[in-house]
């Protein structure tokens, strides 16, 4: 999956890819203070293409620990469980579901917005591909607003950027590909070689998406994210991140 992180203080978008294995669960947000965790399970394409097995978000889970409620969004359904009750919805209908402080808004065959206590929101976008496509599979996109109100304990691949890091960029120069400039980025005490590129935001136009120009961090976000991406692999969909 591709990650785009908007850094408001620097007014800059930073992006990176993480290619882990299908089945792995990546932690996106882990906020033990508010009791919210957002995890994503990867799925692989149908087969290896150009020597590579692409991975995508196949399932996104939002767990709200205080109420014991978990919302699991997959490409086929949206399931909600509170330990005792299980309810599931398909992508085939627009629906609004509320349980105490949790609200789920499904827009038919498009997206679902999960709001926890009015201050944390996660939006999951459904991408459907041609069913008989030899390689591609249906996948999900996840959009987490910058203004979510987490506790100071928030972490995770996305959650850690709730604390906007100080970033400086210099030595912008032509790269090997004349269309892609390169630069040096200083962040978290690391000096990184970054490449100018773009990723897609599909919220407005689900088919073509809109380009988001960003500075690309190589090696699965190494140096930009705290630790190594494998530190964010968690055992199950409701797991909080255990940071050393």
């Amino acid at each position, binding site marked *: 999956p591709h990650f785009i992180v908007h850094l408001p203080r620097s007014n800059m978008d930073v992006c990176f890819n993480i290619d882990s294995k299908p089945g792995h669960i990546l932690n996106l947000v882990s906020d033990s203070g508010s009791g919210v965790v957002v995890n994503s399970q990867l799925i692989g394409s149908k087969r290896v293409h150009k020597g590579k097995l692409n991975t995508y978000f196949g399932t996104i889970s939002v767990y709200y620990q205080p109420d014991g409620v978990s919302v699991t969004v997959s490409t086929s359904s949206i399931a909600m469980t509170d330990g005792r*009750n299980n*309810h*599931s919805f398909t992508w*085939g*209908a*627009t*629906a609004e579901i509320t*349980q105490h402080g949790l609200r789920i808004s499904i827009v*038919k065959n498009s997206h679902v917005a999960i709001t926890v206590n009015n201050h944390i929101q996660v939006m999951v976008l459904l991408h459907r591909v041609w069913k008989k496509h030899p390689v591609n599979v249906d996948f999900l996109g996840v959009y987490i607003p910058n203004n979510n109100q987490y506790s100071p304990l928030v972490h995770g691949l996305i959650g850690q950027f709730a604390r906007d890091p100080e970033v400086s960029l210099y030595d912008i120069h032509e790269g090997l590909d004349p269309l892609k400039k390169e630069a040096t980025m200083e962040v978290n005490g690391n000096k990184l070689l970054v490449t100018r590129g773009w990723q897609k935001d599909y919220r407005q136009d689900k088919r073509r998406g809109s380009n988001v120009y960003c500075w690309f961090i190589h090696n699965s976000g190494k140096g930009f994210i705290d630790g190594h991406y494998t530190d964010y692999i968690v055992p199950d969909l409701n797991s909080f991140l255990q940071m050393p």
Partner: protein
Amino acid sequence: ATLTSEEQEDFEAIRGDDITVKSYRVESRITSRFAHTTVRSSVVNSGSKAQSIGFNVQIPKQAFITNFTMTVNDIKFVGSVKEKTVARNLYAQARAKGMAAGIVRANSQDMETFKTEVHVPPNSLIEFELHYQEMMHRKLGFYEHSLYLQPGRLVPHFQVDVYIFEPNGISSVQIPNTLGAQFEELVRVTQTNDKAHVVFKPTLQQQRKCENCSDSAIDGTFIVRYDVKRDSNSGELQVSDGHFVHFFAPSNFSPLPKNIVFVIDVSGSMWGVKMKQTVEAMQAILDDLTINDRFSIIDFNHNVRCWSEELVHGSSFYIEDAKNYVQSIKPSGGTNINEALMRAVQMLVKASNRGQIETRSVSMIILVSDGDPTVGEIKLSTIQKNVKRAMREDFSLFSLGIGFDVDYDFLERIAMENRGMAQRIYANHDAAEQLRSFYRQVSSPLLRKIIIEFPEDSVSDITQNHFDKYFSGSELVVAGKVLPSESNTLTSFTTASAASLDITLETEADTAELDAELAKQQHSFPGFARQMWAYITINQLISERSLAPTAAKKRKITQRIMSLAVEHQFVTPLTALLVEGDDGERLLADSPRDPKHGCCSVPANGLTPSKVVYQPPPWVLMTTTAPPSQVETGPREEQIVPHHINIVDND
């Protein structure tokens, strides 16, 4: 009734000095759960003498006859639905001129019989054609279409066709083997995504009871069971012919916890098989309870006893104890329904006041009774009032009437008035299975307080759209008229409460798409939405009528039912089918009544049992199988006056 050469040979082979049925064809066209069935029979009097020829069809009780035509030696009798009084007057006029004959419709368990007999000269050909329509109700995850087949004789051309068209797709079609092992391999099912065709066409030889028998082995109910595909929980909205139908049958919700008080009649009349089957059913029902459910059992005769004074959890300990208790019941004594129901309501009220009932749980009383009250309060209207007064909005009452000694209409009224439903249990059938099946229908409530709404000015004449509960495996249906609009879509909004959450669902439908699709279908029923709307509306009005508090209100409802029934050509309790020949001969088909029960009660609708009057024209004689004592000879004016309802026109 054109026969193939093979069938013609069969016809010649069986043609004797008798009546011969040349062909018997049943065709059902089911479109979006609404079925139009046609039964056609072509009969020949092959004998040398004039003889009586009968045409008997058993139709489901919930069906409305829409037409009947008969052709006797090329003279055609055509049917039309009229207000009952109008039809009777016309019929009386014909009778006065000796130009009338009769048709009998009689009740049996879940079917009613439409029966005609014609006395015809030798070498006559008679063709009968009966049409009826009904809505398929989803129960335990299936729609079931039943056709009772009883040709009575071997038939050279015998054929049943059931065509199903479901716009959203058919998930499964099953034909249970109900006619006997010899027919098991003879049913053919062709299915595509949205269409299915079921054919049953046994040859003359295959119809024989044994190789050389001349009796037909076809005698029973042919059942087609199917379900539809549902790609979302929000329901299916269909628009056709200016009408809409919204089907709502979600799944994938956790069942709501239940608080159930079982109220079981153990009066003397329950002694024997009824009690044995009730106990057997209760053992299975109790096993179905979960630890999240709360329950108790009240058994009553002239006294009322509680197995537990309070609701208890459905733990294995309590379930075992309750089963032992039920097992030990020995029926005797009278029937005190009022006190038993009051005790059940009090038990739920007490639990509710103590906070033992979960907010989102479903509280219900399940009453099983086989007879009218004989002890304590015996006036049905007072019991009805008492129960209604005591019940809370969150409680509902489900009634099961075993056998025919019970006033089923009363049980149905108190159930309907208290957000429940009723079912008759046939004591001579597998009563235990019927009880269990009813319980299975209500044992998984998934949603509460369901409201299906539409944007203002988009629809009118909407049928019931507020529902107290939705049970797993069933379906809620709302229909109405679509108002003219510039938009080509109709939207519905459904709100409901599930265990722990509230939901709002949105469904959209194109207003022209389905009609375009129906036009392409050869065997669909294009007017289904219009007829289904009328069918639901009339049934609702009939229920409302039985609960109407004032005569004026009742009269208004009566008028509305009659006008709708005439417009949509349904034979209802308030309309009749007048069948007229070219030269003014007339036949009358009135709706049948529920069989009499007990000693003192009367049908809830206040109508007297249907009786047939006939005065044979010179060449055709319509007879009835009713005993001579029941056949009236003079104008029928007398009415049995019920003491518990308001009497207005046509009561």
